[in-house]
């Protein structure tokens, strides 16, 4: 039987069973029970839970007091019980939650707390115990965890029976038989060569001591360099290191089966990075995978296909859903890397942006989300449209704007489709986007907004209208303006429509404008007058020779207000360069 940790050469002290001080036993019992109670609480509650805190506090106080009096507390460990000096103090035979069993199963037979034990040490110890209990029993190893922590005032005795039970069980040791006698019989006669050399050394250096110059000495300046080498190794992320190595292995591996198995590890590594929200390294991984695919495509179609399979999986439905969960969880530390990662998975991740958008305001990430859309959108109009929603007005507007910037006439049907949301802001954005697309289709599409229920939309449409080859545009406006109820529209709307007509330089429009100015209706005098004033304003803004001619005619009309407005408009036109240019 062997013992590990600090007690490699110690035997369990069987003599420590005699209890001279009953008070000591009582105190020890209370501490042991307190430890078990704290452990039970820690299994259920987080460390900042008040009950846990109190329990730890009580345990700390009791054990510090005990160690102050008795220097050491050694607790014997049996399968389901703790003992103090051979006296059972605590029992819990439910394997799953038993603290004695947690210690016992990994070979621990005694744990000792020594004077000098600090609160921090106790808390770290409890953390280790909790960590071990959270791992499935077959995978956890409390001895290994305590061993690596090197608690200065907590020591344990554990069996090293694994050496006999786990290694070479039933096998002969590989030890070589040595004949001890051979080592002491016979003699060593130095060779002539060695004797000569020794003689020489004796003569030349009577107080000989081999020269230290062969061994380079460690200088003060070496210390920081070595320490920085160690720090660099410590700081390197294990997952990143694994990824880097896996890529090197993939580059070197010629065997398909092994290539596939390494690739599987890389895939796991990727998912672990994603789960850890380490999107910076996950992005590097994806980029390198893409690079490697390109390199391998020329050499091995099979390997390139295996990589492609992984790449597809990174953006399948479940992966995207996972990313959404991670984002919604709100624990991402590096959003820039997160978005960079999403950019690598376009177009699938565009769909995710819709969900993200709803949360970004609280994260203050609108700008980054928009830049993601701007980068990804232009080539993915069809996908972008899918995330537009009536309830996501601002996002939908951004999407429309991005589509508009493409200037691609193929986008027109998509834009028109968004008009179904019947939202003023969205419709106005669509009109603005359509205007940016240099095609008759887009111009025609704006016409449709002239019949919207929303006046503001109709005005915007009219204001953004442009002429195109097809006469239908002029005809449509003409038709609207000629309708009896046109005069009932607001001044702004009338102006928008009439302005458009005024710029057409169309004879029929001129005739129509002339007749409108002359027209007077006693019944609707106010509205009629407003329409006529709008005509004057439209003619002024058109600033064509034909408009000037009509305005001049207007200066002779019966209506004083119209005459005056026509005069004013003409004077303004005379002063401005607009007319000269147009003429």
């Amino acid at each position, binding site marked *: 039987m062997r013992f590990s940790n600090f007690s490699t050469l110690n035997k369990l002290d069987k003599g420590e069973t005699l209890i001279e001080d009953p008070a000591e036993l009582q105190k020890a019992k209370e501490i042991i029970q307190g430890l078990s109670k704290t452990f039970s609480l820690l299994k259920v509650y987080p460390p900042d839970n008040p009950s846990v805190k109190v329990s730890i506090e009580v345990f700390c106080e009791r054990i510090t007091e005990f160690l102050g009096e008795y220097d050491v507390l050694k607790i014997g460990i049996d399968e389901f019980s703790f003992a103090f000096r051979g006296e059972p103090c605590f029992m819990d035979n439910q394997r799953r939650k038993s603290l004695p069993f947690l210690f016992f199963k990994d070979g621990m037979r005694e744990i000792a707390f020594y004077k000098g034990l600090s609160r921090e040490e106790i808390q770290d110890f409890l953390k280790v115990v909790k960590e071990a209990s959270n791992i499935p029993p077959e995978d956890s190893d409390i001895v290994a965890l305590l061993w690596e922590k090197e608690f200065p005032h907590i020591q344990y005795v554990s069996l090293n029976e694994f050496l006999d039970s*786990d290694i070479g069980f039933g096998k002969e040791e590989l030890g070589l038989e040595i004949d001890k006698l051979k080592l002491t019989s016979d003699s060593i006669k130095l060779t002539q060569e060695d004797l000569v050399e020794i003689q020489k050394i004796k003569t030349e250096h009577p107080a000989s001591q081999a020269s230290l110059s062969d061994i380079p000495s460690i200088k003060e300046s070496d210390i920081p360099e*070595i320490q920085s080498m160690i720090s660099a190794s410590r700081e390197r992320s294990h997952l990143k290191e694994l990824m880097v190595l896996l890529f090197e*292995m993939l580059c070197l591996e010629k065997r398909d089966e092994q290539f596939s198995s390494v690739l599987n590890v890389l895939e796991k590594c990727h998912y672990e990075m994603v789960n850890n929200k380490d999107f910076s390294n996950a992005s590097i991984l994806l980029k390198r995978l893409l690079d490697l695919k390109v390199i391998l495509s020329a050499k091995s179609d099979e390997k390139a296909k295996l990589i492609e399979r992984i790449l597809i999986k990174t953006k399948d439905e479940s992966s995207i859903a996972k990313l959404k969960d991670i984002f919604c969880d709100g624990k991402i530390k590096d959003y820039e890397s997160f978005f960079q990662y999403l950019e690598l998975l376009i177009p699938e991740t565009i769909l995710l942006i819709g969900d993200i958008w709803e949360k970004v305001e609280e994260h203050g990430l609108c700008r980054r989300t928009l830049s993601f859309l701007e980068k990804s959108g232009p080539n993915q109009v069809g996908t972008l449209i899918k995330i537009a929603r009536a309830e996501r007005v601002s996002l939908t507007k951004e999407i429309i704007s991005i589509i508009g910037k493409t200037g691609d006439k193929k986008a027109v049907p998509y834009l028109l489709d968004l008009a179904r949301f019947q939202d003023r802001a969205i419709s106005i954005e669509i009109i603005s986007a359509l205007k940016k697309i240099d095609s008759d289709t887009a111009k025609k599409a704006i016409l449709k907004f002239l019949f919207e229920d929303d006046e503001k939309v109709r005005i915007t449409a009219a204001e953004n209208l442009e002429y195109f080859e097809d006469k239908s545009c002029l005809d449509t406006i003409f038709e609207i303006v000629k309708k009896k109820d046109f005069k009932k529209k607001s001044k702004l709307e009338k102006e928008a429509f009439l302005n458009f007509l005024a710029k057409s330089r169309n004879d029929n429009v001129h005739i129509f404008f002339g007749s409108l100015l002359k027209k007077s209706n006693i019944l609707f005098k106010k509205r009629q007058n407003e329409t006529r004033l709008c005509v004057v304003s439209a003619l002024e803004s058109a600033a064509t020779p034909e408009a000037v001619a009509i305005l001049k005619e207007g200066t002779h009309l019966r209506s004083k207000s119209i005459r005056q407005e026509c005069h004013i408009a003409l004077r303004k036109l005379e002063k401005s360069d607009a007319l000269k240019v147009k003429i």
Partner: protein
Amino acid sequence: MLDHSEATYDESKAVSIKARYKNLAKLGEEILVRFSSVIKTAQIFEQNNNTFIRQIGLFFNRIQNALANEKEALFQFKKNILFFNYYRVKFDFSTYDSFKFLADAFREREIGLLNFSLGLQEEELKDFILLFNDTETKKENPFEDFRRKLAASGISHITIEKMHPSEILIEESIEEQKKFAKKVFFKSITHLQEIIQRERQRKRIKVKTTQRLMQTIIDLIIQNESIMVGLTNLKNHNEYTLNHSVNVCLLSLCLGRRLGLDKRELRDLGISAFFHDIGKLEVPEEILNKPGKLNDKEREEVEKHPYQGAVKLTSLEDMNLIPVKALCVAMEHHIDADLSGYPKYWKKNYMDIFSKIVEISDFFDAITTERPYRKKVMSREEALKLMLKDFSYKFDPLILKVFANMLGIYPIGSLVALNSGEVGIVTELNPNKEFMARPRVKLISDETGNKIDGEIVDLAEKDSATNTFKRTILKSLDPKQYNIKISDYFLVEGSYL
């Protein structure tokens, strides 16, 4: 007893405790370094020498500083841990030598506690250091002898307490340590052999057992590094890869410890070194053992073993228990410091410190081991010289330097001729760097050349009458020339190495 209302943990108190511990750690480290320096100086210089006087002054100032702040300056040594005022003093690369030196000094004198108290005078401290270094101290009962002398000298502000009996390394316990170390050594070989078999049968490998094994080896190194370094002299030619892997593991762990790696890192390093050549399983035996020069195809096969090893490690069922660094080491142990060697990397442009450590240990063990293709097996000193001179470009210069200092001028296992006419084998290096050429030596022949089961002598020991060293190494000898198998001396039971 506390009730709920009383049990509020004072965070600010915790912060101040942490700050105090931090100060204590710094103070303890400074005193530790000064303490070891002054003892080393006293071993070399006379008491009226200026260097010694200056060192005493520096040490005295540090202690006064501690006494002014802490009211006490108390050193404890238990379970291989040094405490200063009950606070553990951890070592790193810069303080390793001082730590090791002081720990050895405490253990040798069986001192468990050393207390400097208020009122201490510089002269008193000087007397104490001289007594501490008194070579006439009895070996049978060093503590009692020292305490008696201390009481007689009138030193009143420095008190000592004896080490706990369980920690005193008596002859039997050292023997037991050696026996256990050998067992662990052979168990390690068996374990690797089983791993290889299980891997071939596609059975689950017990990585948890490997972890435990490494922990045991590391504990043994902490207790007695010399025993473990000595075991690397064992060479089983029939099981070269297995034996070599264990040797590389031991050498790497000793080197890693000197560099200041913590226990967890050491365990990872041990596992990495243990598996560094696992890729060789893929290389046909006839190529590995080919006596002559390899042809291009064979060389190509051999050069695949690093990444094949890494691939093998990734395919283990318990891969999550294998440290990532083990993959690094498997891949990189033939890549040189300038990134030449093999394999050639695609993008990676650095080597991990673990790979650098294992590369050095691997090379050293390989060239000191007989192989069918190796014309000459080098002695340990020859190997070290070769690495320092002709192959220095291959290795990280700083780590190689630490490795060379770890092995010393006469590495453990060196066969040496002494000025006394005796021949011996180096068993332990002198912890004082100034006495690097004065290790502990097991005498294997007397002055007439007759083989003996001699004692282990300390070459730093002086003859009190003449104040000269009793024995000095004149020359290292080639064991092959004298038909001496060094490993036999490390293997044999009894009062041997």
